[in-house]
């Protein structure tokens, strides 16, 4: 279902019929000019005076497409499509002051996002950038920040950013049913924001996900398909469904719009650092899309003059049980060998990462690293972040903190660099991962003697388990 197929509410004619009328003789134009001007605006968002995007372009071969529901270069090479913007128009329209006066959500960066009409604003974005001094000391760094999307709205992961953009665009393109293939967080977000927007929703997940992620989808009452297979198999099924059902799949036919939402993480970090770029960032790698879009966000703010250019190193984190990008990086390859995932970090368990080659390119070009850690190190990473900074993240965040620790130990992050670690999800969704590795409560009687006895035990236990304190 594309813009061409929608009927103009005034004339009852489709866009293609009206285009034909425009191309007829002078009489037809004069008869239709008034309506046509209305129709052109309502059905061709790319030419709207209000929008800053002009179409889609293949990232591989440069082929141009209009801004419809498509994600790959169908006419030439099947490379991924990216949104094209008029940066001169953006530059003429935005300043630090206009952004600071905008809503406290990703929509303060609306001119950088591919949405032509009023977006779905559920308060997504502008999450805390936490100065992490205690974690920095524990790791041997001096200037470390945590970008905490574990408290993003409405579903506590960075996916709310991409879904807010994708569903806003889906509505403009005329979709009434939205869908996704998900490792959990994306399903939560798609179901929640579809509920808010009144869109029908059918989402697909691997059947072995954590119960918190299944419950956190079902509560919004979408249709939930739990597929007996891994994420890559779910995605393949969804590609076939997308071909035949005419739904808006946020990560398939809406992917060029969806992925742009991740750029806002980059914008926010610049703004929250006082309109400066950091020296080094570290983020988890699943498909590699988030990583490449943080980079794009930084580049765009430089391009339109909002921030002074300086080199930023990009490092990526994977779980050893699903590390096709880290393996390719270590071996010096520029292509990905798909793997079959086996890790507790299910939210980033994508064995065939579509943007992996781009993530490798960015890490190499900027002097960053891509590394992987074991499931045990991931659990330690979750606990380290919680104990040192009061931030409870899910397994993807544990992966990021564990890889950060590893890269510091290997001398691949300079202690004096201003480093930002992106925490992309909330720990309450993956409690299974750490349930057996954290402490238990002291169950006591409601009497002072019982407390005193337990307190002595607690102090002895604390001295043994945390000698550094």
């Amino acid at each position, binding site marked *: 279902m594309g813009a061409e197929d929608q009927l103009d509410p005034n004339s009852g004619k489709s866009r293609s019929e009206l285009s034909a009328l425009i191309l007829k003789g002078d009489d037809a134009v004069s008869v239709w000019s008034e309506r046509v001007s209305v129709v052109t605006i309502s059905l061709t968002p790319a030419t709207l005076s209000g929008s800053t995007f002009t179409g889609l372009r293949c990232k591989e071969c440069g082929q141009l497409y209009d801004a419809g529901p498509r994600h*790959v270069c169908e006419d030439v090479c099947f490379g991924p499509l990216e949104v094209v913007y008029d940066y001169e128009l953006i530059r003429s329209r935005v300043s630090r002051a206009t952004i600071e006066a905008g809503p406290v959500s990703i929509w303060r960066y609306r001119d950088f996002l591919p949405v032509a009409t009023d977006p779905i604003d559920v308060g997504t974005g502008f999450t805390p950038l936490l100065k992490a001094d205690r974690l920095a000391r524990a790791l041997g760094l001096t200037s470390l920040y945590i970008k905490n999307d574990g408290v993003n709205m409405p579903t506590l992961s960075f996916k709310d950013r991409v879904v807010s953009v994708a569903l806003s665009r889906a509505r403009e393109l005329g979709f009434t049913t939205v869908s996704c293939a998900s490792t959990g967080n994306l399903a939560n977000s798609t179901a929640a924001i579809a509920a808010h927007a009144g869109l029908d929703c059918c989402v697909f997940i691997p059947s072995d996900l954590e119960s918190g992620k299944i419950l956190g989808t079902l509560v919004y009452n979408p249709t939930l398909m739990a597929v007996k297979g891994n994420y890559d*198999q779910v995605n*393949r099924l969804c590609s076939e469904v997308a071909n035949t059902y005419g739904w808006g799949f946020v990560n398939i036919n809406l992917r060029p719009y969806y992925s742009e939402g991740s750029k806002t993480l980059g914008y926010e970090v610049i703004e929250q650092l006082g309109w400066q770029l950091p020296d080094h960032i570290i983020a988890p790698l699943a498909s590699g899309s*988030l990583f490449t879009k943080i980079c794009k966000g930084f580049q765009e703010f430089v391009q339109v003059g909002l921030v002074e250019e300086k080199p930023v190193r990009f490092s990526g984190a994977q779980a050893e049980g699903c590390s096709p990008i880290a393996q390719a990086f270590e071996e010096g390859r520029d292509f990905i060998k798909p793997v079959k995932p086996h890790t507790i970090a299910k939210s980033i368990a994508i064995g065939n990462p579509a*943007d992996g080659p781009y993530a490798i390119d960015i890490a190499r070009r900027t002097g960053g690293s891509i590394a992987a850690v074991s499931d045990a190190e991931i659990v330690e990473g979750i606990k380290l972040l919680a104990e040192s900074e009061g931030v409870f993240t899910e397994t993807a965040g544990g992966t990021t903190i564990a890889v950060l620790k590893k890269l510091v130990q290997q001398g691949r992050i300079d202690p004096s660099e201003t480093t930002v670690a992106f925490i992309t999800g909330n720990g309450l969704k993956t409690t299974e991962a750490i349930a057996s590795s954290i402490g238990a409560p002291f169950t006591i009687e409601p009497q002072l003697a019982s407390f005193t006895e337990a307190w002595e035990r607690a102090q002895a236990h604390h001295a043994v388990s945390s000698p550094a304190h």
Partner: protein
Amino acid sequence: MAVQVLIPTPLQKYTADQATVSLEATSVAELIDVLEATFPGIRQRLCDENGKLRRFLNFYVNSEDIRFLENETTALQAGDEVSIVPAVAGG
């Protein structure tokens, strides 16, 4: 019996809008040859200028990515199902 090949939407213009075609081939490489002979022009969409399968296309034999099998030399048998699916992102 032949192998069934699932054709993605963007390539169905080569197959007279058929989403599934039935062809005789004993390997993935031979299947590409047979596809080209049956639907002229489709090879340049499946393969890059060096003749390698395009990196943003995934080929599956009975739901298994051929990169876990023998890539282009993966053997095919009567009744096998081959799907051609463009790569997608997500998470």
